[in-house]
């Protein structure tokens, strides 16, 4: 199989520009990148057909190897139609993004950001529990000899093991540490991090 060097070079340039544009954040450039990639691929398919030959119409006195290979051209035709449809659809989406957000950029995923910002502290699962969790929680000795009581367990600010004074629970939220109570408030409806429900958030 022989290859046309010019077509090959053009194909390489199209791929390079296409990938470069695809990595941009602007949607229009992404679309241009996809179009270049699709056209580069069409050239690649064309190259698999080898050198140009006669049009593939059957004639009795033409030897078979003089014809051009018609299959790559049929494949290209199909792929052109498909990329045309997808490009039109992408343009529609880009226009819609512009109408909605007045921005030609890929928007961030709100829920994704929320999950990323959610503290690993879970008020229900991770609150400090007293050592004694039996059914008879009146007053018992803890393993360190000090008296512990289950009645204090409802408090979010659990007694500190050593000093006996109340320590404030902090949780890591991204780079900074914030108070656990504040972290819980972050998750309340109406906070910026929570998408409003169908009823429009809090009453």
């Amino acid at each position, binding site marked *: *199989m022989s290859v046309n060097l010019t077509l090959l070079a053009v194909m390489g340039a199209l791929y390079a520009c296409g990938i470069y544009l*695809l990595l941009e954040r602007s*949607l229009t450039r*992404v679309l241009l990148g*996809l179009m270049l*990639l*699709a056209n580069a*691929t069409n050239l*690649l*398919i064309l*190259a*698999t057909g080898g050198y140009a030959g006669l049009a593939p119409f059957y004639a009795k006195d033409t030897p078979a190897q003089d014809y051009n290979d018609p*299959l*790559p051209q049929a*494949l290209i035709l*199909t*792929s052109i139609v*498909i990329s045309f*449809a*997808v490009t039109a*659809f*992408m343009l529609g*989406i880009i226009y*819609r*993004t512009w109408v*909605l*957000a007045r921005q030609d950029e*890929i*928007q961030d*995923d*709100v*829920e*994704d950001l929320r*999950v990323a910002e*959610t503290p690993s502290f879970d*008020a229900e699962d991770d609150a400090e529990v007293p050592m004694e969790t039996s059914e008879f929680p009146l007053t018992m000795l803890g393993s360190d000899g000090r008296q512990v009581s289950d009645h204090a367990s409802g408090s979010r600010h659990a007694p500190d093991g050593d000093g006996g004074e109340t320590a404030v629970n902090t949780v890591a939220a991204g780079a900074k540490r914030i108070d656990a109570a504040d972290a*819980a408030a972050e*998750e*309340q*409806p109406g906070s910026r991090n*929570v998408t409003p*429900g*169908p*009823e429009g958030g*809090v*009453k």
Partner: protein
Amino acid sequence: MNIASFAPLAVVLPILGAALTFVLIRHSRAQRTVSIALLSLTLALECLLLASVWEGGTAAVNIGGWLPPWGIVMVVDQFSSLMLVVSSAVSLAVLVYATGQGMADGDQDAPVSIFHPTYLILVAGVSNAFLSGDLFNLYVGFEILLTASYVLMTLGGTGPRIRAGVTYVVVSVVSSVLFLISIAMVYGATGTVNMADLAIKLADLDQGTKTLLHVMLLVAFGIKAAVFPLSFWLPDSYPTAPAPVTAVFAGLLTKVGVYAMVRTETLLFPGDSLNTPLMVAALLTMVVGILGALAQSDIKRLLSFTLVSHIGYMVFGLAMSSVAGLAAAVFYVAHHITIQTSLFLVTGLIERRGGSSSVDRLAGLAKLSPLLALLFFIPAMNLAGIPPFSGFLGKVGLMQAGIELGTPLAYALVIGGVLTSLLTLLAVARVWNRAFWRKPSDAEHPDPVLLAPRETSDTGRRGGRNNVTLLPRTMVGSTLGLVLLGVSLTVFAGPLFKVSDQAAADMLDRSSYIQAVLGEEAPVPLILTSGGGK
């Protein structure tokens, strides 16, 4: 006249339905009737196809009478006919669910009337991909279903859907371009795109070219199937679509990718040249996916991550390239299509009943609607692989095949599989505990719907008091049907395993596929393995 020669109708009927429903775009009742009737007809035809293939073996249909390897050929073997039946059953259930939702919400709006034609085109694309015996026709099938899925994904054009749609479209187009590049290279190397012909001609290529083509095809299909490093797009884009759309995407689209991977591995590039990287990818897909699921509080996102994670099981079964492993993978695909779709449908019901799909806002649903709790509980336990459900049987099959293989990597995958199964149980149990069991007053910020006084019935059109959206009978009925289908996969696991065993043996043997397409005298090249697995 063999029933198998009607196989192209599995593609033609849905496309005909799409045309009819497009004409009937102003008559929603007629649209519903036509689409459900044609899809039922397709399902019936596919059941007949499965039966005929079971009796008569693999069959090939030459479209337009052009002989292979020049013409387009459609091949029905046990694997593809099984996939056709399962996918059509699932898409029929989802269609009924979606019409129920449309009727309950009033589907006079313009964008929703486009749903039926688009949905049927999606089904046609899926069927085309399953039936195609031609690499380029497989690409066309993918493009049909992807283009339909772009429209369904952005249905209504709201902000979040457009945002998710952009990512989805760009990723899908890139994977399609990769696939097209691979096809061009395959054609350049062999001069054919017919899969049976390729199976013979690819064997003559030198090892380097073969590996290049193999890797490129696997990467293209890996993006579509959401195998780990290429799975990032899925949890980002699926959850924002309407519930029935997410359900059908979760059930079918990734499985078409898995199907294409199976064909690549068994028919085009048999042997075990890339089994080690595939196994590593399978392990990472399982573990990373399920760890992502544990971090989510939104049920739809959680399920999207479990979807990614459980793709790992199928890739694991495929990577073993033994009959036992492949059979378990085939069984697992059929099981997972049904279960994952029913879970997404139930989530749609939860969202209607409880007002939200976030477990921080849900509570007390078990008391509010015991039927809903049952509908969630059965597929959830099935997904986690609790005996005696089909999820357990599929996983046991995979573990047995892995232990039979006996390499250290296979043992690592068996352990990873068990771990993933337990973590899946943890993830769904957390949903169960929070959304179904605790009191509404215990929720972090319960939805006002949950605190409202209890209604007497939870089916019917729409509750009067407190604007509680109740569950339409059609939606509950279709979900129930799908859950029952999932349970019946457990009950009929024996016959199903027999079918998958036979399908796996046929696929690894290759001779029935190649001879069905190219004729009895076609040479079937020997499979070269580098030792290790047999």
